[in-house]
């Protein structure tokens, strides 16, 4: 008998007769049930706790200028790799002639650079950002750059995991999910040497959110 049949056969024989524990209903903690302004406020607070940077902007057109400003604070980072999402391409990059943009997304191009991507949602429960793979979004953009800027519209903030799954399913087309759903809770870190937290383990050492009204 092959392994699959043998394992499944064994499991079937061991299945308890009748009365399987029911698991109807669902449990959501209060921290995942905020709405409206309260939800946005909790997102800000949680994102800060995860060591994310946050700029609040009232218009999309302010995004390039704000990125230039933040990069200026960090130091030299003359090129910004911009992900293929249409809302990013249409930003007024001509307003910031000092900042060169690149659309290159291969692994060597993204390694250690500054990059900007959009996201699918963000969770007020934890402060994390949700990035999903599709034709316009390479998964590696959340991992290979050193500085990751993420454009987030206020309306994309959801209360908790339940909202994340809904947003991810929409992006996947129907009940299926996109290949990758990455829920990113701030910069990459490790505590593996003497339990001391060090930022920038394998992923970005900085995650900066551009939170835009609307």
């Amino acid at each position, binding site marked *: 008998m092959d392994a699959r049949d043998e394992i499944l056969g064994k499991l079937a024989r061991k299945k308890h007769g009748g009365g399987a524990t029911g698991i109807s209903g669902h449990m959501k903690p209060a921290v995942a049930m905020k709405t409206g302004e309260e939800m946005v406020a909790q997102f800000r607070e949680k994102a800060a706790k995860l060591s994310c940077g946050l700029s609040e902007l009232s218009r999309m057109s302010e995004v390039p200028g704000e990125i230039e400003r933040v990069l200026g604070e960090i130091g030299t980072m003359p090129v910004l790799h911009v992900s293929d999402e249409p809302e990013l391409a249409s930003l007024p990059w001509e307003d910031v002639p000092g900042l060169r943009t690149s659309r290159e997304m291969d692994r060597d191009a993204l390694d250690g650079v500054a990059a900007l991507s959009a996201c699918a949602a963000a969770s007020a429960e*934890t402060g994390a950002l949700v990035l999903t793979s599709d034709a316009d979004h390479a998964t*590696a953009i959340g991992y290979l750059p050193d500085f990751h800027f993420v454009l987030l519209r206020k309306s994309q903030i959801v209360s908790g*995991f339940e909202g994340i799954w809904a947003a991810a399913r929409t992006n996947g087309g129907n009940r299926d999910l996109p290949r990758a759903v990455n*829920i990113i809770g701030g910069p990459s870190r490790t505590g593996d040497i003497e*339990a001391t937290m060090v930022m920038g383990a394998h992923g970005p050492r900085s995650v900066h959110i551009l939170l835009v009204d609307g």
Partner: protein
Amino acid sequence: MTPPNDQHAPEMHVTSERFSENARHALDDKVLQGGLFIFAKGFTALREIGISQVPEFGDMRDRARDVKNHVLENLGDYLKQFEERVIANGGRVHWARNASEANEIIGRLCAEVNAKTVVKSKSMVTEELELNPHLEKQGIEVFESDLGEYIIQLRKEKPFHIVGPALHLTKEQVSDTFYEAHQRYGRTEKVTEKEALVREARIVLRERFKQADVGITGANFLVAETGSIALVTNEGNADLSATLPKHHIAVTGIEKIVPTLEDLGLFLRLLPRSALGLDTANYLSLYTGPKRDSDPDGPETFDIVLVDNGRSDMLGSEFQDMLRCIRCGACLNGCPVFTSVGGQAYGSVYSGPMGAVWTPALAGITHAANLPNASTFCGKCEEVCPVRIPLPNLMRHWREREFEKHYTPTGQRWGMGAWRWIAGKPALYRLASSMGGRVLRAMARKGWVKKLPGFAGGWTEMRDLKAPEGGSFLEQYEKGRRS
């Protein structure tokens, strides 16, 4: 359980026979004792603070227990549903009765694509299988990418703790290890600071990620409804392993399944809080199938290896409850035995209370008879377990079995008395007395030890806790020892 001559019987190599000897040695190891202090006090405090912020935590644990019980009662059905969804999404599912079979499958998948190098993210199941030596025998170079796992791989050790594999080492030891191992990449300068060590590992491993032919990950959860695997990490290495190489293989136990995404949410709420008191891990990721046609990146193949290796034998036995385990490590941190002797004394990749139940089930009680005895039956493990596994009871079952059959060699039997003796000397007291304890006493004077239960969540605070004057606890401790 399975007859011993069965070629598909569970397999796991352990050196648990030497537990008592290892334990005595560990008690004298000052550096190790410093590392253990972090788990015993720091992680336990972080957990308590983290969960105190979620009033529903107790109810969530009840529900998690019920969901897992429901899954275990219908395990075959959920696995079939999972398999169907994986295939529908363009992936493949492989079934392995035991370690040899799993290693053979993974070896074959690597050979099919002519793999020269493999990059791995932390997976306890592959440790259980001893996959790395198997692949190396095939001439494949295997790189662990979780920083802690990478360090112990270079040092040829076994993980010290399921969540913090290398926390028994000092930065000087890591520095020596890197200095030796990284010469081949032209890195001849010795780095000693923690930040620099992390940076160096990042630079060296980044190239491995980019060049590896195959990425191997575990899976913290499998979602039956969508055919997805869920990975929970802080470093981002699992995601690079699942994205950059052309081939992704996920290796995991058959018990890791949850029915729906909603259920997954429940476990994602429990796991980081139980492990480190955090609201969330840095990276929670779901992977469903290989790269889609229009995707700019991702692997071309997506293979899942479902490993039984003794799990189906536990089902329906008095050890069934153990299959609910989500590997959070909370029972290790709370255990007076683990926090006295450390993970390596157990001689098994699974240590602490959960290891004392898993190890005999997978390796056979004859090889691990000491472990269920390594308990004071204080009940702390059950108290902290997010899926409410009655660990002391399960250890008791093993003791009964073992006692009936007299598997423990005479002279090696650790009576309850010995463990009461250790537990009667709390880690803090032992540290303060055994090493002169200048640092600890100084810290106690400053009031930080007393403040422990009251500090407010998060890793940053954890660092502050251990670093009242800018260094880690171990540095303070080392300084105290030298002065």
